[in-house]
């Protein structure tokens, strides 16, 4: 009992264009819906990517090694003395692009005018440049030159808040392992800018050996920040490193280190589906309505076809085919429009107009929309499947018409 495909295809196509205006309106609705779905998704993905990027720069790194008590009590006491040879070996993994062993302590920075709480980072500039600091972020002056560098690199916004300028001296104050106040003067040698003011106001960089001496802590570090090659899937080095660490130390990836970022990424994944469903629900009203009208307008010819001996299944497939054609054209145009409208935006959208709001959300000030083929496929499949389901109702009703009653309808 094969379907007379060519016959029902001709019928479906002609019936579709019987009422041009109605078909074009619903088609436009599908196109706009599909476009909006893909477009908004690309924006959302760009936003989340920006957030994760910023977040990873702030952490920094894709994973970090700490003393097992450090995250609960980030004081100098909970430091990393020396890694086992096995752990050292694990850090040599070719999938690890860079790592940086850093001292990280809360501190107070004071200028002649003001003081603020910051995180003092004692770094080895050679290591840090591949991890937490990017030389292109340097606004003026220089970055540190060695672990013994006595200079200090601060964020532009912090400089402003402290009402001081590059070249001036500031004092940093923290606690040593014996809970004694440790302080030292530094000269500001470099100013950096970051995606967010919060970042600029939070981190100050100094030579690692200088900070270790100031805190009287010996050659220990607070954390080892590690950068792999991509944040979504970290690779085998993480479990390998985890296995190589002694019980005193632990390694955590960025998701574990920043639950907010993990949530953001998970929201993105759910967002695709939610958006698809919302837009679809709106669409389906139009679609059901169109198909119901299309069916009841031709109730007599459907009756005629049934009376002539066409199977209900043939009627059903013909109307479903109409929906399928309509949806396919809409999806094709919608996807095309989405690609065309996103491509010119891929060099980035400047959000500085709403920079404050963006910053609050932890976003960068430039949004790079991300067009994922998977998002397009998923949106298209959702529209297609749910669209066919909503065509099914009128199609099914039409196929159940009593031929004589339908044929004699006026």
């Amino acid at each position, binding site marked *: 009992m094969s379907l007379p495909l060519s*016959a029902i295809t001709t*019928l479906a196509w002609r019936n579709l264009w019987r009422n041009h205006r109605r078909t074009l309106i619903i088609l436009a609705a599908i196109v706009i819906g599909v476009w909006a779905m893909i477009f908004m998704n690309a924006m959302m993905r760009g936003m989340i990517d920006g957030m994760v990027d910023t977040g990873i720069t702030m952490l920094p790194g894709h994973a970090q090694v700490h003393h097992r008590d450090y995250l609960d009590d980030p004081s100098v006491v909970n430091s990393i003395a020396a890694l086992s040879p096995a752990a050292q070996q694990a850090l040599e993994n070719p999938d690890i692009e860079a790592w940086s062993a850093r001292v990280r302590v809360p501190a107070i920075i004071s200028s002649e005018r003001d003081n603020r709480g910051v995180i003092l980072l004692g770094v080895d500039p050679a290591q840090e440049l591949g991890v937490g600091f990017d030389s292109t972020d340097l606004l003026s002056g220089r970055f540190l030159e060695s672990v013994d560098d006595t200079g200090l690199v601060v964020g532009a916004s912090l400089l402003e808040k402290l009402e001081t300028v590059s070249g001036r001296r500031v004092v940093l104050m923290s606690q040593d392992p014996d809970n004694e106040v440790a302080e030292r003067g530094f000269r500001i040698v470099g100013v950096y800018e970051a995606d967010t003011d919060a970042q600029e106001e939070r981190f100050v960089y100094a030579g690692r050996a200088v900070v270790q001496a100031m805190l009287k802590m010996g050659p220990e570090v607070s954390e080892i920040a590690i950068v792999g090659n991509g944040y979504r899937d970290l690779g085998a080095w993480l479990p390998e490193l985890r296995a190589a660490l002694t019980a005193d130390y632990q390694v955590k990836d960025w998701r574990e280190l920043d639950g907010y970022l993990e949530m953001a990424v998970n929201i993105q994944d759910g967002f695709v589906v939610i958006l698809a469903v919302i837009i679809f629900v709106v669409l389906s009203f139009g679609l059901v309505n169109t198909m119901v009208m299309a069916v009841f307008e031709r109730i007599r010819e459907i009756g005629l076809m049934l009376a002539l*001996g066409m199977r209900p299944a043939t009627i059903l497939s013909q109307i479903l085919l109409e929906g399928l054609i309509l949806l396919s054209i809409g999806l094709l145009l919608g996807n095309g429009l989405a690609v065309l409208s996103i491509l010119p935006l891929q060099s980035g959208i400047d959000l500085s107009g709403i920079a404050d709001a963006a910053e609050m959300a932890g976003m960068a000030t430039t949004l790079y929309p991300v067009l994922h083929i998977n998002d397009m496929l998923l949106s298209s499949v959702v529209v297609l499947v749910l669209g066919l389901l909503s065509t099914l109702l009128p199609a099914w009703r039409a196929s159940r018409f009593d031929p004589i009653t339908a044929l004699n309808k006026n």
Partner: protein
Amino acid sequence: MASVSCKDLCKTFSQGDTTITGLDKVSLEIERGSFLCLSGPSGSGKTTLLNAIGGLDQPDSGSISIGELRVDQMSKTELAEMRLHSIGFVFQAYNLIPVLSALENVEFVMQVQGVPAGQRRDKAMAILAEVGLAGMEQRLPAQLSGGQQQRVAVARAIVSEPALVLADEPTANLDSKTSAQLMDLFIELNQTRNITFIIATHDTRVMAYCRRLIRMVDGQIVGDDLQEPAAAAEPS
């Protein structure tokens, strides 16, 4: 062997509280190759009888056979299959699919029957020429006159050479000249292809063509006469 056989057919319709009699104990034997007229005033049950024979409407009681097939005992699917392959229909009011051309309307049933494309096209062209519509194959129903539409419907009904053609008031919308042409065509098809025709009508000009004339009133058969058809003599 009788081609169509009805025994004690009863059918009532209920409309609100009232019960309307459609068929009242109708029994009828129609031989293969007959050319038969169901006549009677409007509301006498002609359409109801045709629908019952064609398997479009189940009678309340009684039996209907077409050849060996017990129409009253068939499933919906079997009935659809029978209508598709064995019966040609010309309906009273509505016959053509508006989005299909004359040719496509005739081809459509064959397409559903699974007739190969080339064969289908040739047959449809030939039958349209036979009903006098050569050159109008590509017109949509809306571009044809009532008579031409009716002839497309007839072409569609007979193109697959069914055993039986059921025509309900086929001349209702036609002028007398076109009616005469259509009846001549029916007679010719009846004689050359031995197709059984059952024509419901209250048009006396149509009745004149029929060898056997059944008269119905209030769902009952009140007359069953054989007559000498005056067919071809009818002046145009």
